[in-house]
């Protein structure tokens, strides 16, 4: 049984059906990248995993156990396994960088405050922001804020890290620093699901690439299979358009 499995998941965003039957397996330690045109449901898939959207049909199984989206207890328990980094407005604007990273572990998970703080500082140094722990989000650049967001997600010790187009809203010069951080994490054996438009990066770090279109998985396989030798027309079209850039 795969570590994370989605079985025929359907979901809507607002009144529009965005996921039309998704079957996906993610193994422990795997880096899965979701690619595809806008509106194909990639972000919604992540949102379903983290409980922001409820599936209309299908199941999500974590280590073989289905998540009961109707029960708050089950949802909260499931959330403990995930941590998500969004495209924008991740950080809590009214807290310092350090507070942002420590608040959930201390107040929600109720871990020991001193240990949490030590770990937080270490994480922030790891992402290259050890000198900014007392800064506020609005004093940081977009790239720095995203790195803090990643540190914050890691502080929750998630089993699976979800990254939703984390570089798409950044100025081009700031993208590299965030990608470097993610690359570092991928080398540590973290299970990650990454939604990204950075094709070269995806090809480099992903173990499995999943091409989505209109709420369905069109192709899935290794980066070379999906990106260099796509077998479906739709995927081929998409790759051609991307490469033209």
């Amino acid at each position, binding site marked *: 049984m795969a570590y994370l499995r989605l079985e025929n998941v359907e979901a809507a965003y607002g009144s529009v059906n965005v996921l039309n039957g998704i079957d996906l397996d993610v193994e422990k330690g795997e880096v899965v990248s979701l690619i595809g045109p806008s509106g194909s449901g990639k972000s919604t898939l992540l949102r379903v995993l983290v409980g922001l959207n409820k599936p209309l049909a299908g199941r999500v199984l974590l280590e073989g156990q289905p998540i009961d989206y109707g029960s708050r207890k089950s949802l909260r328990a499931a*959330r403990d396994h995930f941590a998500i980094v*969004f495209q924008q*407005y991740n950080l809590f604007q*009214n807290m310092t960088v350090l507070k942002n990273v420590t*608040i*959930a572990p201390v107040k929600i998970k109720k871990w020991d405050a001193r240990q949490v703080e030590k770990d937080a500082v270490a994480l922030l140094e790891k992402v290259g922001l050890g000198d900014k722990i007392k800064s506020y989000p*609005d004093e940081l650049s977009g790239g720095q804020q995203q790195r803090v967001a990643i540190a914050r997600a890691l502080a929750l010790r998630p089993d699976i890290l979800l990254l939703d187009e984390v570089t798409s809203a950044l100025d081009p010069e700031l993208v590299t620093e965030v990608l470097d951080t993610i690359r570092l994490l991928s080398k540590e054996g973290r299970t990650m699901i990454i939604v990204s438009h950075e094709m070269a990066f995806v090809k480099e770090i992903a173990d499995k690439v999943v091409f989505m279109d209109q709420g369905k998985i069109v192709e899935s396989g290794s980066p070379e299979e999906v990106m260099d030798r796509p077998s479906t027309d739709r995927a081929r079209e998409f790759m051609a358009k991307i490469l033209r850039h």
Partner: protein
Amino acid sequence: MLTRLAEELPQFLGYYNVMLLLKAALITLALSAVGCSLGLMIGFFIAMVRVTRAKLLVPVRAACIAYVEFFRRIPFLVTLMVVFFVYQVVGRNTTVFTVALTAVCLIATSYTAEIVRSGLESVNVKQWEAAETMNLNLLQTLWWVILPQAWKVILPPAFSFFILFIKDTALASQIGVVELTYAGKVLNNKGFSAVLVFGCVLLLYFIISYPLARFGVWMEKNLGVSKTGKR
């Protein structure tokens, strides 16, 4: 007319009259300040109830919405009258000040509930989502994340409502509260020139309201949350 004014002025500025006016001015200020502060607290509570999503609370939320929409669309004088007569029926010996205070509170609550709700909505929805994914519950999210950001958007309009209401307290004179307008009527009835009396009352209202208004403007500038959310 001017000669009459000149004649009356010294008598007008006698100890009793000045004390009456000053005490009345204090009542005016107190009526608005206390009423609006209470209103802010209850309005806060109502706004938070409106943010919940529990199905159990649907009738409560509906009642809150009805309350807020209703009391904002009724003249203060009419509210005052209804409260006055209700107290008469329920009545132990409540002072007219309490009656007026209740009326102020009722109205202030409905306005501030809207102000707080706007303030909460001004915080980007992604902040709510980020908190939710970290398993913060509603109260935790409001307390640690949303309110610290929303208060800057809430305080200026709430303060400006308080200043606005100082003028509405003049209507409390109609049920006998000894605020500034009532004091004016008393002095006018004593025989003093209406020009002198009401001129003076207008001046006193101005002296109370104008500095507070300037302070409100200063506060708005300094709490200014720019559109990008940067300080």
